[in-house]
């Protein structure tokens, strides 16, 4: 039996207007994100995947359309919706006035934890993300991998139902990348829903339960990685992606085609 979606995007349009120019970042995107899975948003640079994840993360406003959380518009009570989500944006956005420990502690207070509860949660996360030796360090003193760990740890302080990761492994070395993959797998195994925006196809293949390929602001296909590979008769997602992108260029140079080949989630 299919479970009701955690997030539903309903005809989401996003147009950026500057001076006399309009850029259509999203063109009527509709999709459902089920609970308890890793849902990867894939696409070339400028395809609209970060715009979509930002709208779901309440970091951008759609021009039209709606986002539903468990069937209710998130704009009905934004503050309440934000209680249920954790966000790791592309830019880590960590100020240097606080130490790693303070970052986590205050994040706990922001989400309504008491001082004691926040201290306990901070200690728990510091241990879970092996940040013990950096407890009193400033974010600028950390390597890229550890900074990313801190951002993920910060977004988990309040045990969100949905975690939104926007290009979490960009700029990380292969070892740090693999470590982060383990973290994501661990979170999924605990039942957390994850939206993973990435342009690393191997990452999506490795981690995602469902893949949504976005091209020129439109959903091109939504399917499981296995379904996509068997449907296109390819060995890996990268080949599928390249084929889809090539067909998109051949069929519609203006990017107005909306071909949904995979199985809708």
């Amino acid at each position, binding site marked *: 039996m299919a479970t009701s979606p955690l997030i539903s995007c309903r005809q989401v349009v996003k147009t950026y207007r500057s001076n006399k120019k309009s850029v259509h970042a999203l063109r009527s995107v509709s999709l459902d994100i089920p609970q308890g899975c890793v849902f990867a948003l894939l696409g070339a640079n400028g395809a609209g995947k970060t715009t979509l994840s930002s709208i779901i*993360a*309440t*970091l*951008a*406003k759609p021009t039209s359309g709606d986002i539903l959380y468990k069937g209710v518009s998130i*704009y009905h009570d*934004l*503050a*309440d919706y*934000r*209680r249920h*989500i954790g*966000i790791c*944006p592309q*830019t*880590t*956005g*960590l*100020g240097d*006035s*606080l130490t790693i420990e*303070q970052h986590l502690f*205050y994040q706990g*207070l*922001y*989400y*309504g934890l008491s001082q004691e509860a926040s201290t306990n949660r901070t200690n728990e996360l510091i241990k879970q993300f092996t940040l013990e030796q950096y407890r009193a360090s400033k974010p600028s003193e950390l390597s890229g991998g550890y900074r990313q760990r801190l951002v993920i740890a*910060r977004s988990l302080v309040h045990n969100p139902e949905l975690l939104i990761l926007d290009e979490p492994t960009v700029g990380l070395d292969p070892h740090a990348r693999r470590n982060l993959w383990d973290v994501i797998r661990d979170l999924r195994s605990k039942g957390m829903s994850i939206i993973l925006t990435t342009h690393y196809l191997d990452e999506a293949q490795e981690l995602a339960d469902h893949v949504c390929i976005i091209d020129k602001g439109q959903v091109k296909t939504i399917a499981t990685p296995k379904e996509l590979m068997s449907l296109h008769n390819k060995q890996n997602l990268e080949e599928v992606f390249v084929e889809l992108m090539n067909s998109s260029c051949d069929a519609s140079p203006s990017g107005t085609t909306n071909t949904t080949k995979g199985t809708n989630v």
Partner: protein
Amino acid sequence: MMHTIKQYAHVFWSMLRADWIGYKKMIIGACIDSAIVNALFIFSAGYIFPSMGMQSSYGLFTAVTLIVGVALFDVWPFVAEFVADITGSKTILNLCTLPIPTWLVFTERACSFATKASCLSITSIFVSKLVLWNTFSLMTLVSLRFVIFFICMQLFIGFFSLIMAALVKDMSRIGMVWVRIVFPLYILGASQFPWLALKSFSPYVAYAMLLNPFVYLMEGMHSIVLGTDTSLPFSLCLGMTILNTIVCAYVGITMLKKRLDLP
């Protein structure tokens, strides 16, 4: 309803606390810097200018002006820091995803500016006392109307700073906004001369200047310390400052939400 307000207040207070962690390390240095500048201004206005024919009360007038001026000038580094953040590292975005309405995030920012600036304003009061000694009585400031006006003034400056931050497109233009907007408003806003002096010089300019919110800040503070004979009525200054604070809050928050494209 009460539960929600309590939750918002908790987040708001925690944000202010976190904000002050970084500032605590800078505050002594900022107070020393501010004290040096204030002392020089007040000394010149109180002792040198009278020897050139200026009224002897000009030192006191300047001291009162500086209670407002210091808040306005010293909040500017925080505005610059805020602009650098929204155009660069974007730490504000983490705050914009917290379980509070977005407008409250910017309100906290304005209150943070206000509390930081008020530390320096208070320093300027004590510096004024030290420099002017007998001509400046701290007792004139021990009143409810001073406390109320001081809080309103700092909040106005906090929210006005939000508008300035929204107007600055990037760090290279921060000086431009300062010189073209803030500085003229400050100079013509009864900071160097009372509004009545401007009226006797040019009534048209003086009446036009009633649109300048700084006039009410300066005149309100002057009326508390120097009396109402040479100033606009205190109640008018307080009322207009509250009204201007509300307008600045609305405009500043709307501009920042639009700039950052936040729902």
